């Protein structure tokens, strides 16, 4: 039994096994609304079963908040309907773009770290929040190259979060990946973020593809340095929900539960002490 709010990504690859096991017991589940909106039949049944057993948070893929295109208002309204249908209180997305020139790309591309991009995205965040009537939570994404950057990553993220007053999803693995790929200190990076706006944390595994590059795959177990970074981050922020992302190479349920327990043990030390002092 987990003491804290620790969830797991609900994936079709293991949805049925997950719903029929007593081994994996997260506090909540997270899913991508794009993968479930307007879906009926077998998958809808599983989703409804999951919704009966667990609170749901949503983590979108296609909002494309950093896109140079117009915001897809019809899509945001579809998401809103889905959030309402499943009583979803947290909707997070990626600080990236996945649509350009009216074409979806279905993956997360890096936004130029530039002042005009900040203003463009801040306006779009406000537009999304107005439609959804709830805060948008934005994740720091992993990136493998900067694009025409005129500021550094933490300045870019901080400006967007502060100017839009949206919430932030701290993806600890992405900080680790980016720090490795772009040669910066991950702890210093986290310290510079708008910590008071962090309302959600993601943890995941990654794949080191060369001596100079890590790819954020969500296909491996979390490595110790990422746990260590999480330990550090959790000492700086207030208790928030934490999610384990595992999208590929799904292991045995025991292994996923062990990862949840490990995350829980770390935050138990940090957040219970903090609460006791408070």
């Amino acid at each position, binding site marked *: 039994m987990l003491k804290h709010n620790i969830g797991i990504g609900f994936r079709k690859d293991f949805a049925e096994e997950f719903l029929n096991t007593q081994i994996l017991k997260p506090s909540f589940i997270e899913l991508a609304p794009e993968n479930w909106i307007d879906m009926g039949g077998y998958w809808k049944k599983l989703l409804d079963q999951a919704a009966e057993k667990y609170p749901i948070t949503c983590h979108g893929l296609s909002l494309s908040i950093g896109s140079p295109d117009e915001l897809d208002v019809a899509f945001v309204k579809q998401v809103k309907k889905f959030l309402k249908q499943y009583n979803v209180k947290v909707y997070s997305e990626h600080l990236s773009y996945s649509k350009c020139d009216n*074409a979806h790309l279905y993956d997360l591309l890096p936004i130029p770290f530039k002042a005009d991009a900040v203003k463009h995205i801040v306006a779009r965040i406000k537009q999304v929040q107005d439609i959804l009537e709830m805060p948008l939570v934005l994740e720091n994404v992993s990136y493998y190259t900067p694009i025409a950057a005129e500021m550094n990553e933490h300045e870019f993220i901080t400006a967007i979060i502060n100017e839009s007053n949206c919430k932030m999803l701290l993806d600890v693995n992405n900080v680790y990946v980016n720090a490795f790929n772009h040669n910066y200190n991950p702890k210093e990076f986290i310290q510079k973020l708008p910590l008071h706006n962090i309302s959600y944390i993601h943890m995941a595994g990654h794949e080191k593809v060369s001596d100079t590059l890590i790819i954020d795959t969500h296909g491996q177990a979390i490595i110790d340095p990422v746990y260590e970074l999480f330990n550090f981050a959790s000492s700086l922020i207030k208790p928030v929900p934490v999610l384990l992302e595992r999208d590929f190479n799904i292991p045995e349920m025991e292994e996923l539960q062990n990862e949840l327990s490990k995350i829980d043990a770390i935050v138990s030390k940090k957040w219970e002490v903090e609460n006791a002092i408070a």
Partner: protein
Amino acid sequence: MQLLNNETRKQQQKLANYCRNGITIKIEKSIPENIPHYRRLVYNIITDTLETAYPITYNYLPDEQWNNLVHGFFSNHKCQTPQVWRMPLEFYEYVVANNIAEFYKIPFLNDLLYFEWIELEVHTMPDIDYPTIKQNASLLTDIIAINPEYKLIQLNYPVHLIAPVDKLEEKHGTYFLLAFRNKQNGNVQFMDLSILFAYIIENIANEITLSKIISNADALFQINDINTLQKHVLAFIEDLKQREFIIGFKL
């Protein structure tokens, strides 16, 4: 008011276009050796999704033809759906709109893709409310209730009958296929239909009594033997009941 500078927009477009068409680009203040990872990651999603949606077509086409087709699709077509699992429908529509079947000299290509898409569509389509029904009534004079989660499609080649795909190009004709979803387990069942039985299902769906349908069919298909026709139709109806496509009678 436009807040994004044209130059910023241009850099974003360059990266996105590269991910779609793979044509090498230069991007300001980037790590050039890492840019191909974006193309690889994006393209893997596209190929994985299409190969999962169209396993028969993927296995039938030679690798080079399949790869060229996918590359052409993603380079030239602007994917509209934000839901990646729906993207294969756009792939099918692209193949039809661009006469790829003719270009590749595979006349049944459109039908093969459509058949594969229909399975996915029926499996995933939004739930449709079942009608309120009764179980005891007259098959001939009451309104038969059917499973509402179905598609009745017409094909020019029997892509649903021949596996593996073999000499299909010689079998041009008119074929009908019923695809419906089992309410309990969500599985999709297929039934090959003659034109007569397709006509019967279409008319049952339009809430016409079986007696009237048989009478109309006898004239339409110039059978001129209503008793024999009724015997065959009732056997077909019994089969549909066994398969749980016919679920009872409307109230």
